[in-house]
């Protein structure tokens, strides 16, 4: 076992390498590109006996991934943001083929306006595709989750592709100490893919995409995908227990921090949750019984575990690094439906923050806690809060001032040009 500094992208590549993947269809996009660059370098150096093919788009890349997976080989691919959305049609399609593989998504906020930094609207757009979803908070978790995702996706009761999500910049380009497990340890946990009935072969035609009419067969196939996804809850427990036996690291479907006697809790996804862990510890020091619940598994949604861990909690601050226009935080809506009708359910407060890489400061976590305690006392949740400070508005006003000055400048010079 080696412990070394790795970026999230490096950790994802190590996950694929240790999973001994056979085929890597690829297309570059910031902040994901380093993953395929690293795999390409290993393949080139003869250290990874896999085949990499660069495709002309993410749409083709996902098609290639699904088609290769349908032959029963182990497939790895990666994308981000606009790339994931460009592949959206094929995400639904290949999930319907019931051929397992792993897709790493490096979360990056969606255009327009264009940015490179992270939020979760990209991966949550893939929420209903039929892909399983694992969300990571640390670089270690990225490596481990790729391995877990293969076991889960290939589980005979599941057989669906899986997305492993990591945040752009805050994980993708950030180095942290990561333990790289020995290949022999990984092989025991994750042996070669036993494709069983997944075996599309030349000269043995199989149609993966049958046309069905009338609604009944369609409903059957889609309902069965839903049932298979539900199976992944129990399968994850089994896989996580095996992983802990192999490596000593426990990754629950629902990560909790100091929830035993918590009065209020934060619920959030991804790497900013480590900041919430810090905030919880500071709040505890000041006498506030705070805790954190972080779904690692987002599809399937660990509803029972959420109800259990939030039982007895009086207020929950849901922090969404995404925004559904005209509705609000996606995680908030998911959690509200999970807790609806549960006796003595906690009051939910909603905070939208961390869009496009915006920081969430410690004092903001503290203020969320204080708003949530007050909501728990009164039983009234305030309007969802879009995290934005007076200083940030001044910054935007300054930029708008520049845009306005330019509008005058360009209009003026345009007039000059047309004068003579």
């Amino acid at each position, binding site marked *: 076992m080696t412990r070394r*500094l790795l970026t999230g992208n490096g950790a994802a590549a190590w996950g694929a390498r240790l999973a001994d993947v056979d085929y890597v269809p690829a297309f570059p996009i*910031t902040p994901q590109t380093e993953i395929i660059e690293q795999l390409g370098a290993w393949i080139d150096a003869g250290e990874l006996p896999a085949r990499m093919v660069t495709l002309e788009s993410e749409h083709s890349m996902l098609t290639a991934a699904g088609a290769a997976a349908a032959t029963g080989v182990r497939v790895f691919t990666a994308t981000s943001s606009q790339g994931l959305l460009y592949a959206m049609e094929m995400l639904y399609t290949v999930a319907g083929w019931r051929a397992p593989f792993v897709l790493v998504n490096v979360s990056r906020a969606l255009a*327009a*306006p264009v*940015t*490179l*930094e992270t939020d979760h609207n990209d991966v949550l757009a893939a929420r209903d595709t039929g892909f399983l979803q694992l969300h990571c908070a640390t670089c270690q978790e990225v490596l481990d989750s790729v391995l877990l995702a293969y076991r889960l996706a290939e589980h005979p009761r599941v057989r669906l592709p899986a997305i492993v999500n990591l945040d752009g*910049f*805050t994980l993708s*380009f*950030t*180095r*942290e*100490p990561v333990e790289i497990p020995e290949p022999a340890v990984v092989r025991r946990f994750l042996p070669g893919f036993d494709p069983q009935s997944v075996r599309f072969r030349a000269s043995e035609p199989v149609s993966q995409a049958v046309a069905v009419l009338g609604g009944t067969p369609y409903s059957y196939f889609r309902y069965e995908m839903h049932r298979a996804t539900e199976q992944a809850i129990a399968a994850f427990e089994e896989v996580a227990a095996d992983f802990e036996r192999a490596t000593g690291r426990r990754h629950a479907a629902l990560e909790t921090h100091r929830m035993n006697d918590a009065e209020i809790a934060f619920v959030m996804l991804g*790497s*900013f949750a*480590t*900041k919430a*862990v*810090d905030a919880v510890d*500071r*709040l505890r*020091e*000041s006498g*506030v019984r705070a805790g954190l619940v972080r779904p690692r598994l987002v599809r399937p949604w660990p509803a029972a575990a959420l109800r259990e861990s939030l039982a007895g909690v009086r207020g929950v601050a849901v922090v969404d690094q995404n925004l559904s226009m005209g509705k609000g935080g996606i995680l908030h809506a998911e959690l509200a439906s999970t807790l609806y009708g549960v006796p003595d359910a906690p009051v939910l407060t909603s905070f939208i923050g961390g869009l496009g*890489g915006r*920081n969430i*400061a*410690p*004092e*903001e976590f*503290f*203020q969320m*806690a*204080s708003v949530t305690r007050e909501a728990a006392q009164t039983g009234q949740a305030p309007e969802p*809060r*879009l*995290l*934005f*400070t*007076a*200083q940030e*508005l001044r910054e935007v006003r*300054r930029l*708008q001032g*520049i*845009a306005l*000055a*330019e*509008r005058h*400048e*360009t*209009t003026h010079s345009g007039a000059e040009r047309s004068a003579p």
Partner: protein
Amino acid sequence: MYRIRFHGRGGQGMKTASRILGSAFFAEGFEVQDAPSYGAERRGAPIFATVRAAHAPILERGPMPQPGLVIVADETLLPMAAGGGVLSGMGERAVLLLHSAVDANTWKQRLQLACRVLTLPLRLEETGGRGFVGALCAGAAARLVGIVSREALEGAIRQELAAMPAQVLAANLTQAGEAYDAMKKHAGCVCEAPEAPAPGAVDANWIDLPFEAAELSAPDIHGALTSIQVRTGLWRTLRPVIDPERCSRCHWLCGSLCPDAAISPEAEGLPVIDYEHCKGCLVCVAVCPRHAIESIPEAQAREQEASP
């Protein structure tokens, strides 16, 4: 926790500096997190990189609002509004190290700073005019925090520059060693930065963002290609200079290939570079058929301008 922020421009090696320092801390037994942050993905664009080091696992992420040490590789970032907040969050106990030919006292007065200001003398020859100062800045930072040994620093440089040719590695080791020595009398002056204020001590200062009509709130700018008001000329580390004697006046070539529309012809057809917006990408140098455009280090060009 030690919190260190490196500021520079794309190409100056600030990401490498953060990785060298991160690896050196790691070799000394610290938990480490190092990360670059860059938006424009372009040579010359402002970037910063952070290093956090502590004895417990690091939970902080993202921007570093309260650094203990800030290192600025390029002094032209200081007056720049979009420079990425070079001085943001610098408290009285913080240390600012500037890679600059101007002395520390002058900077302290110019910037009106309460914190300690140090300089690392700027010498063009040591960077070969190319502006890579990653190892230099990492070497200085390693000495300023005081708990990174020379062996750990050198080991980190060998590790991070492993892909470089032997002579490049040797030059970087020398530079870093000199910077490490130059900071000897300030060794250990960087303290572990204080933790963020306790719950309730600071207000989040949230506002209710009002509705604003699309005329104002749509993300439009009204400049051609690059924003006029943003003087991206400050991004340059190398300056393209046109030799009018050799120029054949085919301005449609350099002028139309300039990604920032910063080259336009004067009446006689001689292309003129708008240095307020030229980012120094040097596409024009590469495409000029008469090789009439040369590139010179920006600092040298400015010196020549100052002494006509």
